[in-house]
């Protein structure tokens, strides 16, 4: 697609969509969003970029091959689940740590394995869809 307007717009759109995908990932625990939706939006961002500038350019922008991203995500999700096992809980039990307090209300923020798992989901969806799309685009 050799449209100057699309190419120019795509560069802006990609950054916006990508940041938005991270935003959706992080807000997911309380508001509509989450790793799955975030991953889909992130994938859309890079697909737009690849449609505008070609898959080779998009791969370069991604830096890591999408298959690797997907497998990394799977590994991260697994580790987040195994973490509970190492702490003595059943597999995949959410682990929560409060920083600056001792409960959700008093703490400044929390560290938890649930978000780590969601990041894994995000990466699997992003990497999985992109590996498919890029393979399709490069097929000719």
């Amino acid at each position, binding site marked *: 697609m050799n449209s100057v307007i699309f190419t120019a717009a795509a560069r802006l759109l990609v950054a916006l969509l990508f940041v938005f995908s991270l935003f959706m990932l992080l807000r997911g625990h309380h508001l509509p969003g989450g790793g799955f939706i975030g991953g889909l939006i992130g994938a859309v961002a890079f697909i737009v970029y690849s449609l505008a500038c070609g898959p080779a350019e998009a791969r370069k922008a991604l830096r890591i091959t999408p298959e690797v991203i997907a497998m990394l995500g799977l590994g991260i999700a697994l580790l987040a689940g195994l973490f509970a096992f190492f702490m003595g809980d059943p597999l995949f039990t959410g682990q929560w740590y409060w920083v600056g307090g001792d409960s959700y209300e008093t703490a400044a923020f*929390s560290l938890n394995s*649930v978000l780590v798992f969601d990041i894994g989901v995000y990466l699997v969806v992003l990497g999985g869809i992109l590996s498919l799309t890029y393979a399709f685009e490069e097929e000719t």
Partner: protein
Amino acid sequence: MADHSDPNAPWKTLSGIGTSAITAALFLFFVQYLPTVASGEPVRWVIPWIPSLDINLSFWIDGLSLMFALLITGIGAMVMLYAAKYLAGHKQYDRFALYLFSFMLSMLGLVLADNLIALFVFWELTTFTSYLLIGFSHTDPKSRRNALQALLLTAAGGLALLAGFILIGVTQGTFELSELNAAGSIAGQPFYMGILILVLLGAFTKSAQVPFHFWLPNAMAAPTPVSAYLHSATMVKGGVYLLARMHPSLSGSDAWVWALSVFGAVTAVFASFMALRQTDLKQTLAYTTLMALGTLTMFLAGSTGYAITAAMTFLLVHSLYKAGLFLMIGVVDHATGTRDANLLGGLRASMPVTAAAAAAAGLAMAGIPPFLGFIAKEVAYAGALEMRLMLFVVPMALIAFALMFAVAGIVAYKPFYGPQGELPHEPHEGPWPMLLGPVVLGVLGLLFGLLPGVAAYWLIEPAVAAVMGAPDVGGRVKLWAGFNLPLLLSLITFALGFILYRVHLDLRERLARIEARAPDLDAGWDVFLDRFMAFTKLQTGLIQTGVLRQYMFATFGVFAVTVLVTLLARDVGGISLALGGLSFMEWGVALLIVAGIVLVVLTSSRIVALVGLGVVGIGVALIFIMYSAPDVAITQLLVELLVVVLLALAFLKMPQLDPSGTQSHSFANAVLAGAVGVLTTVVVLLVVDQPFDRRLSDFFEAASWTEAFGRNIVNVILVDFRTLDTFGEIAVVGVAALGAFALLKGFARARNAKGEDK
């Protein structure tokens, strides 16, 4: 012989000597249990494995398993040392050492396992490792074929065995052999016949009883140390071990007595004639092994003291002399370049140590006093006279033992003391690592014969007690038992055997002529395998057509039929359609969706159909939004978008829709699509008609914040309450993406390769 160009050769030799040393250490480890076990106390270890299914990694050392463990580790250490020399310089010697060691461990697990399921796992491990060992010369198609034959036959038997074990576990409530044996015979209980047949199938295939015998001589394609180890002393004895192990619980029925007596006797006699017929000494030994396995099976049919004592004594003596003879044949083969009985002769002068070891093993095999083989034969006759089918067993045993006497002469006497033969090259004495095994085993055969009390007290009596389930019930094991019927039978055996040895050349020709006319099971196996492969090819062609439309037609067709049958078979009540309460918005969305569907069905352009599908998807997303499910709606919209992108990319590469090609299918398609649509609608309406069970929703609403600290219930369910499900789903996403990626890249590569060809 040694290939000095391989810089790793010293390390490879070391790997062989190292495994041999570990095996020797294991031998010493088991020796320390001799006093405990001889005093009648079994040792048991239990490691819980799958406690919920009553499957444990439990081990049990009693007289029977200890005797086997000592044979496995003792002979194993010598065979490994031997192999280090025999295969020195072989490019893949390290691999061989690994296979052999893995086999040794599997076999050890098999004889020590107390839990039936654990025993089965080790059983199959011996099958796999022996497959690797038989097929070690993997560049030779014959070797590969024979390895596969052994694998398929013994693994098929193994599956029958597993079924039998599961039946035992279900009917008896335990998988532990020690508990089963303590409970006594299960003959006459429900499923006994089924269990017996399945277990016997497993044991008979492993121990190569007629008609499953043909894999064993073929397995001699393996290097000689493998034959010495697997096919004489260990693996093939696995089936006999199992029969002995399960003797307390499975014997005690007519079926047991008849099956074991008949199959064992026929195997023994058939194999001893076949042994006489061979000219390759390794093949001769293979058939005498078959004969020994048949004899052991035959004696395990009995339940009297002498019958079991005969089985255990013969087991011990056979392992000693047969391993020794196989190793000796390897030495001779190495030294002279041939194993042909017609060529070998007069080796005594050039190979004195080998000749002495061969003589010891041969005398034990022939059953000459004062070797242990003589005692074994005496006890065997005493046992045979006690057995239920005495009139059948005694003559069969007599024929087999007499033939074995003759074969012992062919294998151990003639090559060394017979007339000078024509050898491919000048013989020389073997190196000491290869002689150690035959010498030690030969000396043991003599020592145990001179001091029968030692062998009886430490090895045979505990083993007999383990099989019989009670101490001090076995037969007396001694060198001189007085003038009795067994002694008379022994003398007849010697006379008959001597005559057979004198006429064996003539006899061999006659046997060859008979064999040429008899049906060949081995060739039958090839025919069977070919037919089976043709059948699978046909079946695959029928089911896996490779046409996507047919796969989808089958999937949706099965769905429609099963739903329809369920609906008709069950009284599902009426369906109520309350359309009155729908708002203007809802009617609008519904119409939008219907319009989209009409467009998809009527168009002949892929892109237009894609747009129509997009309209349907967005309509559904709108419904989600109206019913306050933003998460689902967002996901739906994004997926729709991605589907459009992916399909558009795919369509670019696809040919135009051909209306004439699809016309013929369109009626069937319409019927199927209509049926699936209507049935799904009916099912959804029926579900909606049911009162909504709010228990799960209530739980998630209540617990989402208090227990999982999240206000978005959908997300909390995904990443906290049902994380394992989500993990499974993302694993599917990842694997599907990888699979599709591989397919696409594979096509691209195939096309590129084709392009280069042009």
